[in-house]
């Protein structure tokens, strides 16, 4: 029997458990010539803020051992231009589209959420309380239980779209923050966003990134990501979307084994645009070999 890869994230049904991560896949079209977008379980868009953001000055990225640091600084065209320029193109993409939103205040998050609701082309929202590269909002919310609750709660009141809350790993204990997000009304938890890091150029004796610090992603962070995903899966009752350093289907499987309902592919897209599609195939083959018919059987 052909395995059924579909999963439910709250009331959102994904055709398979492999999403591409926010900030690592643009608005989808960027990769349209290289892969068949309809194969993906879903696409999470680049973070959207209320106002346009120019982002940080370059250099914005630097490679590290088995990882990369980025300090994009949430460059985006802002909500209104997004609605005009990008939204119309999204409904043509034959897979689930999730908007990633970020604000400086809970109210701002709610405003963006409201504006994105009932719009053809947006199937769910990912609330980014974990961006390490902005000076207001972002990770500062995700490092605090009460603020996380507040943001999620306000957004919950503003929309009926499925809500995924994306958490920061830069915390002492991730579990109470995940629980706060659930209490605020999250339909799912997504983690981990990047670890805060930095690198120096010893030639120039200066930080490699103009922003000094940036977010670490890629295979280097996978052990930390897995540990946190496991901790959250053991505790919360909502589905968890696991990510951080997934490059191969084997990596994905580790996340699914510890209890993630779906996985998200970030940095791997840059390395191999086919990563997402190959991972889906890998999971399917694994299930066939083990005669599994539905995703729930993978969990250890």
């Amino acid at each position: 029997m052909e395995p059924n890869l579909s999963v439910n994230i709250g009331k959102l049904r994904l055709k398979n458990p492999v999403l591409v991560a926010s900030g690592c896949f643009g608005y989808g079209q960027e990769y349209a010539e290289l892969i068949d977008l309809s194969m993906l379980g879903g696409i999470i868009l680049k973070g959207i803020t209320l106002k346009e953001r120019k982002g940080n000055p370059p250099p914005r990225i630097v490679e590290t051992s088995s990882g990369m640091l980025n300090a994009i600084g949430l460059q985006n065209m802002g909500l209104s231009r997004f609605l005009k320029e990008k939204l119309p193109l999204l409904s043509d993409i034959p897979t689930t589209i999730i908007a990633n939103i970020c604000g400086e205040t809970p109210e701002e998050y709610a405003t963006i959420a409201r504006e994105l609701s009932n719009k053809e082309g947006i199937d769910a929202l990912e609330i980014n309380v974990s961006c390490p590269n902005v000076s207001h909002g972002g990770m500062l919310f995700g490092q605090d239980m009460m603020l996380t609750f507040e943001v999620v709660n306000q957004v919950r009141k503003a929309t009926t779209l499925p809500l995924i809350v994306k958490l920061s790993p830069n915390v002492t204990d991730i579990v109470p923050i995940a629980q706060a997000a659930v209490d605020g009304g999250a339909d799912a938890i997504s983690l981990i966003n990047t670890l805060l890091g930095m690198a120096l150029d010893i030639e120039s004796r200066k930080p490699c990134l103009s922003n000094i610090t940036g977010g670490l992603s890629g295979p280097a962070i996978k052990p930390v990501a897995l540990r946190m995903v496991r901790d959250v899966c053991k505790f919360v009752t909502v589905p968890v979307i696991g990510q951080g350093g997934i490059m191969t289907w084997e990596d994905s499987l580790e996340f699914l084994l510890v209890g993630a309902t779906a996985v998200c592919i970030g940095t791997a897209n840059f390395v191999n645009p086919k990563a997402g599609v190959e991972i889906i195939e890998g999971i399917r083959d694994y299930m066939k070999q083990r005669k599994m018919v539905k995703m729930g059987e993978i969990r250890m």
Partner: protein
Amino acid sequence: MIQLSAKILEKEEVACDHYRLALDAPLISKDAHPGQFVHVKITSQYMPLLRRPFSIHRINSSGIEILFRVVGTGTRLLAEKRVGDELDIIGPLGHGFMAKEDTFTAILVAGGVGVAPLFALAERLRQFTEVKMLIGSKTKTGIICLEKLEALGIGVQVATDDGSLGIKGIATDLLEDFLVTAASPQLPIYGCGPMPMLKVLSEIAQLYSSPCQISLEANMACGVGACLGCVVKMVDHHSPSHFEYKRVCVDGPVFDAKEILWR
């Protein structure tokens, strides 16, 4: 734009630490233009993790060539590849040079390995117009492709910081000398090389009212416009701050010099 596994057909050490690879990639070369680049996965390991961008150095029916200088881990590992090895590459990427074919002379100014993309451009342009190539480097071992360019009938002038080949000076000195005596005005200039050189180049071009196209470099992750990692500051008259960030990978790598906000 396509992702494919390209066999290395030829490998040549063109100079100390400079290598040329010919890649079997007709599906890329058929759409390639001078100034575009390919994004190369160097190993299946995670070190280096990210792809490395290289300009398309030559375009022919069997594929493309790249020409690179060894500067770090990625290029060192690339230099260790052998004929017959396969490279996972994506290309052609970005916006290349707009080759102006209706001018009397085209001036190509290269700093060091900046020759790489200008070579493809020279091969294209010489079919329509006279091509003048000005190459600068620290010392004579950094002046590459000289004979090959001359064999194509391209007039080449050389400058080295130490005077070991050509004039003692920099490529932009050659440019000024040339423009001062040039028969016709507003000759188009095409440049590739280190940022300080490109800045001077763009100032000279402005002085002589020459249209000037410049190929820029930046750290890249995706190469296809998705990550916003490769931006450079550009003039934006519509923006209150008068600047905007453009992506080298898709909005460039070739930009009009007047657009660039030099520091």
